[in-house]
């Protein structure tokens, strides 16, 4: 029975143009950011590796030749691009309520739990599809503009790909929950984008300047950023040789993981946010009078 509903939910997503309409900008943004950050990273490394800076790096006791700076660009690019699967998720339930197709959805399902479970499965799947597309686009972009020495090794790439897909899935489900709570497609999109791009950056700035950067890791975007950023920073540090402690914080900030915890802890924090909104949205939709 659930299989039927999953099939129906999946058809719902493939019979309108939304999935590719959002996938195109997703890939373009991921590719563009990867190309850009790869280019910037390469220029920095060229500068650091130049004969002028060699004296300085030797004094600091570090060896930049093994620095996989592309990891930071990957983390940043993935984080930006996952905005789109989040919007895709945000429209999952809000569009159904707004278009009133939710009536037929509930009339053709044994109960709301199964209807919403099918949605859960399908949107986890779509989050993964978007995640794979993002990781592929980011990898291509980074590889095109970075020196091969600054690229991660296979294990490192796999780790980044894994957290990239995970971040995409979680962002999608976060969107589904917010959309179910707000029930307005436009409102959901505006709120999600504004929050992730502007509001939380403002919040992060405030808590950082107030001397509480640890709080950033508890915020939604801070924690999902920490998921990819922390992996990038750890991978970088594991191969970078000796790095002064002060520099570690700077590197984490570059990776977008300032104030964030270890990748798994960041993941758990964002999972909690996702669960909060998703289950909240579920509970509201479960009890909602469809009039």
């Amino acid at each position: 029975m659930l299989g039927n509903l999953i099939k129906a939910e999946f058809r719902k997503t493939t019979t309108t143009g939304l999935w590719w309409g959002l996938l195109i900008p997703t890939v373009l943004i991921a590719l563009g950011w990867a190309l850009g950050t790869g280019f910037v990273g390469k220029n920095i490394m060229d500068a650091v590796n130049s004969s002028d800076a060699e004296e300085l790096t030797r004094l600091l006791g570090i060896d930049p030749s093994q620095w996989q700076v592309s990891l930071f660009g990957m983390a940043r690019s993935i984080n930006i691009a996952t905005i789109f699967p989040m919007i895709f998720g945000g429209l999952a339930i809000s569009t159904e309520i707004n278009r009133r197709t939710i009536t037929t959805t509930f009339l053709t399902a044994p109960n709301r739990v199964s209807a919403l479970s099918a949605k859960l499965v399908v949107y986890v799947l779509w989050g993964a599809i978007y995640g794979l597309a993002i990781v592929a686009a980011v990898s291509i972009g980074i590889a095109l503009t970075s020196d091969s020495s600054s690229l991660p090794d296979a294990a490192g790439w796999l780790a980044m790909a894994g957290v990239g897909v995970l971040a995409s899935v979680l962002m999608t489900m976060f969107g589904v929950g917010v959309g179910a709570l707000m029930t307005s497609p436009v409102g959901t999109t505006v709120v999600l984008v504004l929050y992730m791009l502007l509001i939380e950056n403002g919040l992060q700035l405030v808590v950082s300047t107030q001397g509480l950067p640890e709080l950033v890791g508890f915020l939604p975007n801070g924690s999902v950023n920490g998921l990819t950023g922390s992996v990038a920073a750890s991978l970088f540090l594991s191969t970078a040789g000796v790095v002064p402690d002060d520099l570690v914080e700077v590197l984490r900030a570059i990776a977008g993981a300032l104030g964030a915890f270890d990748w798994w802890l960041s993941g758990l924090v964002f999972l909690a946010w996702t669960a909060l909104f998703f289950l909240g949205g579920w509970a509201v939709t479960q009890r909602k009078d469809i009039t």
Partner: protein
Amino acid sequence: MHDGSGRIVVQNLTKQFGPVAAVQNLSFTVEPGSVTGFLGPNGAGKTTTLRMLLGLVTPTAGIGLINGRPFHELGNPARVVGAVLEAQGFHPKRSARNHLRVYAAAIGVPDVRADQVLQLVGLGAAGDRRAGAFSLGMKQRLALATALLGDPQVLVLDEPANGLDPEGIAWLRSFLQSYARSGRTVLISSHLLAEVEQTVDQVVIVSRGQTMYYGPLDNLRDQQQGRVLVQPSDPAALVAALREEGITAIEPLPDGRIAVAGVEAKQVADTALKAGVSIYGIQEEKADLERLFFQLTNGQYAAAPTQYGGQPPVGPGTGYHAPPPGYQQPYQQQPYQQPGYQQPYQQQPGYQPPPPPPGYQDPPSGYQPGQGQSGLGGGA
């Protein structure tokens, strides 16, 4: 899982939207094999009732059952009940066929069923068009096609004639009648009696969230007093003869005919024959259903309880027209069981109620012909 009877039972359904009582203690039964009209003016609670029956709205009290089960216990509900509801949506970018395939998948019927129902509702050529480009009438047809996907035993339609052209309405009428004739259940709501008068066999008439009448449409028609218009050779002699038989509701008409209320044409003709009066013309004037509907659905709060079924204003039942706060409780505990309702109901000749659920008695059956003006409809 469910009993497969095709019976819809609405028992004491109540829905409170904040301070607004959309539906109050509504009860009726819909039997298979007939088209039942669910009638009431706009805002009478029809849509809310149907949505409660279909599990879309949670009742404040009471229960709606299909095949003896609440909607959520039907298993694969779309196989049991199909619904066309107002404001039921389509994604404007999704083609009609894809829309149907989505829900065909959910119900678990093969994709070919989508094309079958498209043909069935006359949208065979429009399957690839986006639903957003459909006219209101086409959307109604698509909604009906969606309801038919699971080949359900019970069909519930909320104002399905909206947006349909006369041809579409005629088609829908014959479709629903043949659907019901195959032993299935059809419940169709409307705010216009005339719209469904030719379609339905049974009616449930609600007003302000309460049942006003429930039974066969023909009985409702019979309850309304008809008149016999007769053109005698000697009006005075006929009037005298009729008065002798105790018939006093006689009224002269401007055109020289006389109108006799509450009798059959046959009786007037027999009386005239006995009195030696020739009859040049005789005509039965049927009850005006629309007027009766209007009376049933208006002024329920203003009507004097004493007029209702001829009962004196004692006992809880008399509060029916203007439920005070204390009224609901005895009414809910023992719905339709007040003795005051039973008596006029049983005195009513010729009234054949459909097989009601046990204990169910219908209060509006106490409606007395001829009292509509001062009774139910008096306050309008």
